[in-house]
């Protein structure tokens, strides 16, 4: 069984690309459109969460905090998708409890590398 990854992004293009890349590498991918939907979609067997920061309803930072507050996911690796322009977001993400970050736009290999780095 491949590892299960929850990909959260309000942009379908990004979800599709993340999902496609990860599935191609044998991961199991669940998708959600924003933080709130991600909280609905997540289950205890999710091995990694990849989330965008800017999303309607509930953004990525909020999502990280919510997940860290839940014992089921307090040690689930979480990667935030950020762009080079929001360096401060990296710090916000970190202080909220994110494990790492992926800088958009990413090469598929880079994404896989980072995923491997945090969840093996």
């Amino acid at each position, binding site marked *: 069984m491949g590892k299960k990854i929850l990909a959260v992004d309000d942009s379908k293009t990004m979800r599709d690309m993340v999902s496609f890349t990860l599935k191609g590498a044998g991961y199991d991918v669940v998708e959600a459109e924003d933080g709130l939907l991600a909280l609905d979609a997540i289950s205890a067997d999710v091995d990694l969460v990849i989330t965008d920061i800017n999303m309607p309803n509930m953004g990525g930072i909020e999502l990280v905090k919510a997940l860290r507050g839940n014992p089921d996911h307090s040690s689930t690796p979480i990667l935030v998708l950020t762009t080079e322009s929001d360096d401060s977001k990296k710090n916000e993400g970190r202080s909220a409890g994110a494990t790492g970050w992926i800088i958009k736009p990413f090469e598929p290999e880079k994404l896989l590398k980072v995923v*491997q780095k945090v969840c093996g």
Partner: protein
Amino acid sequence: MDEYAQFKITYFAECAELLADVETQLSELGSGSEDPEVLHAIFRAVHSIKAGAGAFKFTKLAEFSHQFEALLDRMRDGRIQVTEEGVGILFRASDILSAMVESAENETPLLEDFGSQILEEIKTIISSDEEPSPATPVMAVLQQTEDTIPVEKNYTISFAPKTELFKHANEPLLIVRELKTLGNVTAKPSLERLPLLQKLDGEEAYISWIFTLQSEAPLVDVEEVFEFVTEDCDLNISLVAENQDEEETKEVNKSHEKPSDLDQVTTPKATKLAAKQNIGTPKATSIRVDLDRVDLLVNTVGELVITQSMLSQQTNELPTDQFPNMVRGLEELALHTRELQESVMAIRMQPVKSVFSRMPRLVRELSAKLGKTVKLTTIGENTEVDKTVIEEISDPITHMIRNSLDHGLETTEERLAAGKPETGQVTLSAEHRGGRIIITISDDGRGINRKAVIARARERGLIGDTVTPPDDEVDNMIFAPGFSTAEKVTDVSGRGVGMDVVRRNIQALGGRISIQSAPGKGSKFIMTLPLTLAVMDGMIIEVGGAKYVIPIPNILESFRPPKEALKQLPTGQNLVYVRGEYIPICHLQQIFNVRAAEQDPSKALIVLTETEESGTVGIVVDQIVGQQQVVIKSLESNYRPVPGISAATILGNGKVAPIIDVEAIYLLSQQLMINSTLQSDSAPVPTDTLEEVSIVEADNIELASDLIEVHTTPIG
């Protein structure tokens, strides 16, 4: 990268939605909205466009959207004030963004400096709030110190995780594993801090390591392994050169009290931002469906409606007591067919907002260009029409708004001189009436320059030199082919598309357009269109053995009039007296040249119908067959346009029945009457008594008869 083709399709579809969204939100912003969610929404949209652009390597688009995003980011958190000028820049930037998306989608290259002007403006604004530390130069310096030729190097790495590392769900084992991908690793753990078992805290970090790594990888690659944990550990990476002559040490770890302080400062703000995002945006509950599929569904349901009506017609003659179950079944079939058809049509219904929301923008830009101050008011933007109609109304509306601003409204000086308020008013409204959508565009400008129109009409030989047509006729001459009311072609309205083209396009949709104008007070364009181009409720009527359909929304009532209620004007216009009002009636038999079974309306039936502009009109019919839902089949595309007929349908018996355009029928009957009176009597009527007749209510008998007399003036 073929597998990306499909993502590109998704991406461009998404871009189209995002751009439309940006447009809407910008209009909000332009109309003075201070809702913070507006800027957030624009930011997110541009952000998403940028992310995709980067992924697909649309460099220009990525760079532009990056700067655009940066500007929006500063605006949304208040670092840069949102001024009117700023909003103007946002509008222009969103245009450029659209153009760039389009160019990327169609793979049409843009000019090298396309958008560079606005890009500079954005950069200038941003630099007014530049924080001095883009991270990239630092990286560049680091890379420069690296050897370009890969040489085997020895690294010594001391790595002591802190508790935070685990809290962030990082895992030393995985880090070591990654380090191993770079080269040969030996690890020496240090267990000094490890307490006795009973004192061990599972969440505390005790073990530290010293790794030695033999690798050709540059320092940055090694640093990258610890990318996520540099702040959660004590880390020291030193490079031992192969020949041991020189030792280069790079301090990676630094004191982190400062950043973590910063974190705490920024965190409450983040919470606030996120909390704000929480309100206002409803959860998206829509899915995207290809319009072709919906169209196919609509057509199939249309066929189903025909089949159903055919079935019910054929079984109507059967004795109900013999097949009670079948009759009941057929009734249910009828009910469900109708429900199905209504829900399918609802899928394609959209508020006109998508078109209306583009107009504030247009007005804004045009008024700036023309140096006029204009206030646009939109009314009824939630009025829904079929998507097929929405697509068609955008151009005419744009055209008429341009026209109003450019020709309708006076310059500021002229307005003040005429004692009008400086700000010109343009109103765009939509409403449902008589089963159609009515869109009006009115302005409080100078009105149609009738003298100029008449002069132009004479010049073009449209009217004789001595003839002066009535005012409303003059006004509507602007719709004549090749007739431009503009004294000079400007770059605003003079785009080569005349009002005649607008009218032709609208008529092709079964719509009508007219203008009402009062000199010095303003003009009003009235455009009416069917709500949908697919199905409608119709009343089947019969005249002279032929069946016709009258749209149900037009019908007010039907009755058999007593003889004394029928009157005829000297002009030949027949009227019926209903509850204190004289209503003009017309005979279909004259118009379609059929022989009605009953010539005398008091022995036949009159169907009273409501029209958009001609008020109430009675239509004399032999009999009413029944009400039925009919599928509209275009005459234009299947046959050719027929005056007085808006479309056709197929009845249950498989025969084609024309759908009557009541207003057009009425106008045709007027025309017939004029033609016949022209032959007998052509005494001209002085027009100066008709000053006030420009807006004709045909149910007003006096005005109507005046109008008819006016029409007796020979034309051309």
